[in-house]
């Protein structure tokens, strides 16, 4: 088959128009030839014999009549062992390899293999000749770091096959033949450890998609207790610049209780990626005893890298996530920032002169965002094991105003909303998630009745605080004043968390429950406090002890000492428990019993 070719007839920014001879398909990859360079591009619209292509490179120097060669393939990524620990650009070029080849700068038109071709992997077959297999069935495994990497029947093998031959146990490279499969018509297909998959198509080789009902523990208290995320769920973090979106994702990428983390740095600062890629190889993951890098893949298409590749980068990332999910692993994809991806779409849409929607975003913005988050999920695989892809995306709304198209479109489809608040960030109350405006549809790690009670204190305290701004302390009753102090206390000792303290940065579920119970006791207390001064003083002291407690190592002597200080102080003023607090506790306990 001869390759389809074409000639450039127009250039507008990073879009070229090409007159095509032969057949092409939407999202097909082509290369524009400029001098010695071949610039990778993707077909994004076809009209008659004209194709419009977005070029994944700077278009400087492209001229009319330059040749274009089409590949016949959709934009795809390589899947196989060797993805973990890598740092890729949006098109899966390994950045450290590019640096070895080209030095400080990203040269135009240089593309490299995503998977190392020379590395050998220890293969153990799991099928034998004569077995019947289908897409995503495991042919064998290779160890990849701490994981057992499944070598699977490629996901685009849509029929049922008979294994003709399978490689013996031994060391092989990704390009060597691992198996020969025969279809019903008797055609034989050679399979090796790697195959390609088009990034814009979801991988669906699983038995069943399930409801996300297990918490994905982030070890950030405000999230796990109040606005939890579920394995296989989706959540978004909108917030104005400087509010702490990136720091929050960095913390999550370190401590989240998942097998694999895929970080998609999409159109943001290169410097932030550098922090991750320099630090992760040094940081030990306490769960595995290995470095964090061994469970991480970074896709870095930062803000000054070509815009079209930025659009591709989130798809590259989610495809890698789905691939590891097929191995029965729990994968977390963190995308920072989805707004930059949406803006990349907006730029292309503008060049295509499509009818613009709100703020010039394309009319299909909502459906594209929905389709992206739909690729999250928890699934039961054919072998009965479970895997999940959880997606968390930051959103960078223009002017910090959540009433804009990207935030709104995202809020329609995600299961949890962690809205960052400028005022909280400016007051250095980190993580600056607004506890009252944010929400989650997922189950948390602490009994829901108790959490609801705490939340009610928070909102009542907030109301009192608003009122106090108008009438002053003088005009506020002692009772209301105490509610306000309780809510500020809850905020200071539980919602706020120091990401840079080795102990406080990550709090286990066990500790969250333990600490929350103590907190609950305080929030639900009827307190004997003589006046406002007394009340303020009491809560100041209590706060100091509680923060010290947060900073002390779980179950250490220091931990117990600080706990005792809190209890002693509380006993001096506590005369009983509020009725609502008793009720909520009872409700929580009875649920626990019926579950047990």
């Amino acid at each position, binding site marked *: 088959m001869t390759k389809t070719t074409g000639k450039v007839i127009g250039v507008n920014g990073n879009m070229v128009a090409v007159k095509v001879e032969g057949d092409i398909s939407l999202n097909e990859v082509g290369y524009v030839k400029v001098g010695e360079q071949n610039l990778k591009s993707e077909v994004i619209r076809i009209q008659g014999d004209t194709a419009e292509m977005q070029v994944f490179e700077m278009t400087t120097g492209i001229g009319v009549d330059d040749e274009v060669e089409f590949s016949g393939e959709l934009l795809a990524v390589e899947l196989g062992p060797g993805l973990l620990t890598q740092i890729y650009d949006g098109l899966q070029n390994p950045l450290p390899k590019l640096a070895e080849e080209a030095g400080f700068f990203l040269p135009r038109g240089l593309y490299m293999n995503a998977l190392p071709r020379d590395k050998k992997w220890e293969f153990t077959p799991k099928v034998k000749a004569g077995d019947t297999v289908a897409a995503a069935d495991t042919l064998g495994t290779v160890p990849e770091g701490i994981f057992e990497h499944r070598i699977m029947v490629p996901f685009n093998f849509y029929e049922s096959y008979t294994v003709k031959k399978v490689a013996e146990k031994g060391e092989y490279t990704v390009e060597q033949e691992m198996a020969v499969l025969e279809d019903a018509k008797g055609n034989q297909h050679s399979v090796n450890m790697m195959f390609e998959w088009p990034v814009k198509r979801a991988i669906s080789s699983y038995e069943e998609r399930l409801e996300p009902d297990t918490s994905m523990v982030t070890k950030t208290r405000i999230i796990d207790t109040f606005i939890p995320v579920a394995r296989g769920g989706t959540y978004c973090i909108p917030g104005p610049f400087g509010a702490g979106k990136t720091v929050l994702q960095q913390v999550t990428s370190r401590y989240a209780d998942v097998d694999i983390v895929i970080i998609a740095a999409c159109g943001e600062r290169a410097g932030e990626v550098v922090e991750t890629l320099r630090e992760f190889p040094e940081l030990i993951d306490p769960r595995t005893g290995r470095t964090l890098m061994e469970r991480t893949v970074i896709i870095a298409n930062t803000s000054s890298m070509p815009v079209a590749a930025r659009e591709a980068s989130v798809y590259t990332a989610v495809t890698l996530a789905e691939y590891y999910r097929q191995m029965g692993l729990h994968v977390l994809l963190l995308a920072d920032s989805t707004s*930059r991806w949406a803006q990349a779409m907006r*730029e292309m849409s*503008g060049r295509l002169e499509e009818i613009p929607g709100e703020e010039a975003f394309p009319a299909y913005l909502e459906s594209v965002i929905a389709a992206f988050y739909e690729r999250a999920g928890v699934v039961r695989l054919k072998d009965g094991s479970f895997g999940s892809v959880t997606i968390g995306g930051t959103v960078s709304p223009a002017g910090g105003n959540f009433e804009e198209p990207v935030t709104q479109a995202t809020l329609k489809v995600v299961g949890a909303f962690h809205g960052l608040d400028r005022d909280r960030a400016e007051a250095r109350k980190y993580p600056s998630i607004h506890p009252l405006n944010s929400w989650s549809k997922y189950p948390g790690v602490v009994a829901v009745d108790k959490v609801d009670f705490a939340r009610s204190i928070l909102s009542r305290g907030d109301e009192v605080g608003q009122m106090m701004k108008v009438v002053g302390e003088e005009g506020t009753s002692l009772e209301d004043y105490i509610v306000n102090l309780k809510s500020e206390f809850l905020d200071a000792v539980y919602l706020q968390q120091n990401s840079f303290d080795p102990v406080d940065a990550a709090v286990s579920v066990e500790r969250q429950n333990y600490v929350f119970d103590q907190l609950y006791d305080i929030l639900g207390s009827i307190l004997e406090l003589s006046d406002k001064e007394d009340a303020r003083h009491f809560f100041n002291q209590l706060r100091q002890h509680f923060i010290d407690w947060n900073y002390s190592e779980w179950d250490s002597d220091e931990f117990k000492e600080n706990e005792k200080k809190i209890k002693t102080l509380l006993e001096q003023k506590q005369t009983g428990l509020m009725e609502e607090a008793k009720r909520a506790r009872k409700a929580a306990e009875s649920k626990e019993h019926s579950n047990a």
Partner: protein
Amino acid sequence: MRKIYSKIERIAGNVITVTADNVRYDDLAVVSSKYGDSLANVIRLDGPKVSLQVFAGGRGISTGDEVRFLGHSMQVSFSEDLLGRIFTGSGRPRDNGPELDENMIPIGGPSVNPAKRIIPRNMIRTGIPMIDVFNSLVESQKLPIFSVSGEPYNPLLSRIAMQAEVDMIILGGMGLKYDDYLFFKNALEEGGAMSRTIFFVHTASDPVVECLLVPDISLAVAERFALEGKRVLVLLSDMTNFADAMKEIAITMEQVPSNRGYPGDLYSQLAARYEKAVDFEGSGSITILAATTMPGDDVTHPVPDNTGYITEGQYYLSNGRIEPFGSLSRLKQMVNKDTREDHRSLMDGMIRLYANYKESLEKKSMGFRMTDWDNKLLKYGQIFEERMMDLSVNIPLEQALDRGWEIMAECFTPEETGLRTGLLKQFWPNKEDLN
């Protein structure tokens, strides 16, 4: 010999269209009109139709004027000879020096591979306490000064430039008022910094397209010097004018605007420039300080808003002072751990107290009763503004830290500061206060 085209088919704003062949995207051309020659570059190819933006502007161009393509995109001469010189946005001399045309390098080159970047580590001292103590500037940082128009952002930039420990300064002026241009020139001459400075200046009266070239030309030159081991400080003033120039061209090209008339790629365009800030391992660095005026003192205006999403913090200039709130150096934690052991705690403590002062001030303005504590805070706030925030204060970091302790001792008892006992023992000025 390249063909000369003498039929301009369309002139709209600063964009002209000719039918030509063998032209490449972004190529340069010379447009000769009776007002002289101007460069132009290709911004769209549509079959044989070539659209160019004319650096000197479309005004006065006639349909019969000549267009000659040069066969390459925008370049600038690079050598030590640039030092001490003043150029326009398109690289022509603005002083009386000779035209430079040797060793031409392209502008707007590729971006740095993130895998080759390193974590920033060197503080740049400026002698301004609101920067050095509270929001340290770091080598390779990109940081704008968000300013209401009328604030002294240009004097601030020039002062930082002269006091900063860098090897050279590149000033990219965009829409500079002529007075401001002269101000920079005089200030750097008087400060003896001219011989290590290069100017690329577009003034408010120059053609708008040249404004668009200033960041790229400045940063291309900066990049070369940095690769030769120089620590380069690039000053860009005012980036809002740059964004407005982009807006003008976008509207001429009938692009759909996204937000208040600005093109949809404003973020990418600004980021492409700011991301040139870098520390080359084993070589030099580029630090970018920019002025971004905020129309209507509105941070949510598209220009400051997009800038804030790109840069590593911002200095918020208001009432002639760098405000501690709203200002942020995102890289400060990389360097302020290695300066003096009281640096971080003092910084946090003083800002916390200043925030409390603001609260008391608000309470006072609402007519609520002032407690003793409120009165202490009111005193503190006033002294803090006079001796720390005032831009005329010019002292090294260590002296500023000492001054911080003095101010606190003048206003508070040690335990009222909420600082760690260990630090108080070491740094509190009157040891008798401690018991």
